[in-house]
């Protein structure tokens, strides 16, 4: 029997007066790679943010490793969750280098009043080599292109050595060669370390390639939840209609 890594029980999520996700329930097993698919405004990004606590759950419960996620244990769970946001706007003059942005991913794990150890630094170097971003490390983060920033943020998420990965449109801004490279890296790490992964993408080809299970969201609810083959059938049926 598979361990349940993430469980959402009748979860609603909203911002100010608007509810974006309505009573959503699902379970994601340890090591599963789930694609989140759906039109704009379906609530995919909000769902990722609800899982790492950046969006407030207004009703229902979220469980990680069978423990309810709340304000008292949120940092403990966030330290094992890698998150790459869809959009990331920043002042081009910000006095922070790309290597510092990557290292920040590990700061939560390093803990208060401690500085990254040699082991931490070695691991960071390893991840940077994997993503071929060594040549970017000494550059100011704000001066990088959209694709370069995305790769730095993916490295930032991976240096945590996460148990859960939350990817939001990570392939946007990347060129074709880099998309193939990142797909290969994610696949390798995900299989080797059994990282539970949720990935938002509009790209059906990428979803088909990477995700064994697909959750299709519409209007803040689950429209379809199933395997790759049934997803493609559903997609075809929807297009014909």
């Amino acid at each position, binding site marked *: 029997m598979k361990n349940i890594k993430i469980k959402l029980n009748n979860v609603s999520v909203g911002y100010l007066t608007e509810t974006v996700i309505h009573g959503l329930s699902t379970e994601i097993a340890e090591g599963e790679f789930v694609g989140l698919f759906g039109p704009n405004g379906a609530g995919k990004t909000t769902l990722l943010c609800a899982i790492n606590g950046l969006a407030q759950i207004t009703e229902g419960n979220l469980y990680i490793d069978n423990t309810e996620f709340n304000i008292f244990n949120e940092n403990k*769970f966030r330290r094992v969750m890698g998150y790459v946001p869809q959009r990331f706007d920043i002042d081009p003059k910000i006095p922070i280098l790309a290597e510092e942005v990557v290292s920040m991913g590990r*700061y939560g794990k390093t803990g208060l009043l401690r500085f990254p150890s040699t082991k931490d630094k070695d691991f960071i170097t390893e991840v940077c080599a994997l993503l071929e971003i060594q040549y970017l490390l000494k550059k100011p983060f704000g001066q990088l292109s959209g694709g370069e920033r995305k790769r730095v943020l993916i490295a930032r998420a991976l240096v945590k050595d996460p148990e859960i990965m939350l990817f939001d449109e990570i392939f946007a801004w990347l060129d074709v060669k880099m998309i193939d490279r990142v797909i290969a890296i994610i696949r390798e790490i995900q299989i080797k370390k059994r990282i539970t992964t949720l990935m938002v993408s509009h790209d059906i080809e990428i979803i088909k390639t990477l995700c064994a299970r697909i959750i299709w969201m519409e209007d803040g609810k689950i429209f379809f939840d199933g395997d790759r083959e049934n997803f493609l059938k559903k997609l075809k049926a929807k297009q014909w209609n």
Partner: protein
Amino acid sequence: MELIGFAFFQRALFSALLAGIACGIVGVWIVTMRISFIGVAISHAAFAGALLGLVLGKSVIFFSFLFSFLACAVLGPLSDKGQLHPDTSIGIIFSSTVGLAFLFMGVLPEGKSQALNLLWGSILTITHQDTILLVITVALLIIVSILFFKELQSVIFNREMAKASGISATIFFYLILFLSGMTISTTLKSVGGLLVFALVINPAAAAYQITYSLKKMYLLSTLFGVLSGWGGLFLAAQFNLPAGASIVIVSTVIFIFSVLFSPKRVNNEN
């Protein structure tokens, strides 16, 4: 230059050094996080509080602390939840704190000179107790900046992403606000309620134009803060000008030069 021999001038130089360091550090946080509207509101609240202290005949610094902390307590949650639009809120908070300040000034039982000292600053009349408070503030700021460098850097980079990394970003954001309030309250007397904010913003904004390294920005910002303080004091002594205003003018000149010779400007133009 013969003024250097006088104890009051030496104390003023020491206070300018401390105020420059304190405002330089706080300025780094305020400039990089783009929360200058909060800083303006805190400095005016501190000024209003100091005047209430004068009206009540109680400790000026205590009431200045109290008001600046209250401003943090109101502005912090609004900003943290993203519900604060700077254009509107700054208008309301700025005008209400200035209104309160002038109200307290109006009901002051005795002469207005003490109130005017708080408005323009009087670094040459700084007391031993004021200097001790400044030393404590500077020590606290340096300790926090070093011990929590990586957490503050994460919060400066992006608060949401810092939270997602498992850092208590909200706690560090409030720490920044309260230390800003403390700095403004303790430097109020030397630089003045209307001018203290310029000493917070200008040196840090100048440093921001020059470097892409946060560590260097801390160093440059404090250096520019101290240079502004000392330069202003010598200008004031030489030409018989108000010290607080001279300090701010020097900091503005430093900022203008940093913009003119900014390597970042060249980068962005390319």
